[in-house]
């Protein structure tokens, strides 16, 4: 990477990041117009009616049979920048299957589709901001960005939080994945602490004996003082 690229301070990637080729024709060229917070305060949950089904947080139980692959538990907390939990907020995730294939018409990676795996889940955080999913560890897969490009295994997450400013779509990676070093999406985040925020942690206390490995993944939404909680947690 050279300093030709505009690297933005803090935790967020730049809009234009040429190593990720699709940014070149899609990143706006003009600077964003900065809006004072008081003008954008949306204090209600900013999603509509999105019902949650019984198996929406368990991607291994959404079909008649069990999906192929390594069963895992992904759990953590949704927090604001002051470390306060964000309770009762929607968490959505989606991913490819264990072989690295999405159940999607435009995914032409020649890896098998798993008839027992759709790859989508959703849940609400509890009163302490906690969430938990059971799923299958996703596979790595190739993509066309550059020669011999492979996405590290990852799970997409989408969260709303409490205001327009807290809307977040991100990706969770797995510990010690050698592909992260070569991945322009991961590398678009320059701050090493911010990179580590996107990497889940193996967690024995989440691991269920004779069943599934546990990975902890906490998500920190932008903003402070977003809710008038008593005291810190």
């Amino acid at each position: 990477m050279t300093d030709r690229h505009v690297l933005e301070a803090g935790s967020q990637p730049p809009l234009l990041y040429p190593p990720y080729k699709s940014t070149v024709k899609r990143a706006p060229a003009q600077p964003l117009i900065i809006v004072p917070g008081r003008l954008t305060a949306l204090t209600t949950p900013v999603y509509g009616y999105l019902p949650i089904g019984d198996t929406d947080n368990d991607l291994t139980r959404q079909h008649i049979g069990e999906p192929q692959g390594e069963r895992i538990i992904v759990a953590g907390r949704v927090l604001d920048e002051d470390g306060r939990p964000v309770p009762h907020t929607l968490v959505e995730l989606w991913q490819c299957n264990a072989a690295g294939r999405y159940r999607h018409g435009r995914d032409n990676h020649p890896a098998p589709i798993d008839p027992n795996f759709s790859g989508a889940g959703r849940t609400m955080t509890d009163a302490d901001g906690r969430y938990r999913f059971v799923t299958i560890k996703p596979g790595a897969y190739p993509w066309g960005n550059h020669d011999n490009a492979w996405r590290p295994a990852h799970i997409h997450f989408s969260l709303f939080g409490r205001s327009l400013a807290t809307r977040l779509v991100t990706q969770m990676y797995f510990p010690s994945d050698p592909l992260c070093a070569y991945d322009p999406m991961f590398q678009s985040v320059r701050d090493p602490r911010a990179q580590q925020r996107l990497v889940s942690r193996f967690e024995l206390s989440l691991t269920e004996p004779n069943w599934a490995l546990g990975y902890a993944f906490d998500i920190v939404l932008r903003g402070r003082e977003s809710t008038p909680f008593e005291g810190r947690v």
Partner: protein
Amino acid sequence: MNASGQKRQEPEPLIASSSQTIGPFFHVGPGAGDRCGVVAAPGVPGERIRLRVQVLDGDGAPVNDALVELQHADANGVRPGPVEPGDPPPAFSGFGRLATSEDGACCFETIRPGASSPDEAAHITVCLFMRGLLRHLVTRVYFDGDPALDRDAILALVPAARRATLVARPTGDGATWEFVVRLQGDRETVFFDV
């Protein structure tokens, strides 16, 4: 101050989770089962409109893999209240989410929103997600011909020459408003840092 007269150290804020692109395969995920183009059910008070949002890239080519989310107030300028899991679906959710088609467009069914305050023009807030966007974009749809455009506090932050990029225009049937998002170019849409 503590007992020794030193300013108490505020704990370091946590570093926020970084945005990452929604990628090309989100269709299997967010709202897959209930992707909602109907923001206001039939019978909700207000002037019924359709809002067609089309997204064009730096070459002017349609973006056929964008996710468009919108939210807006009701006809009286009131934003919908919270919805608890298990509540029946509200007639007016104030929230819509659709993927664009091959023509780069998607079309929402809703009502024309009202203004929420005297220093604001009625508008629809739009979030855009797509492959190639490491962070999502936020913009606003205003309505052509609205006399309140001149007093809208956020529009006033935008250089005058670029304000037209935020204004939807009615098409032939009068009930369909068209809003074109140009990601780059001399008519690049204004996007906001919120």
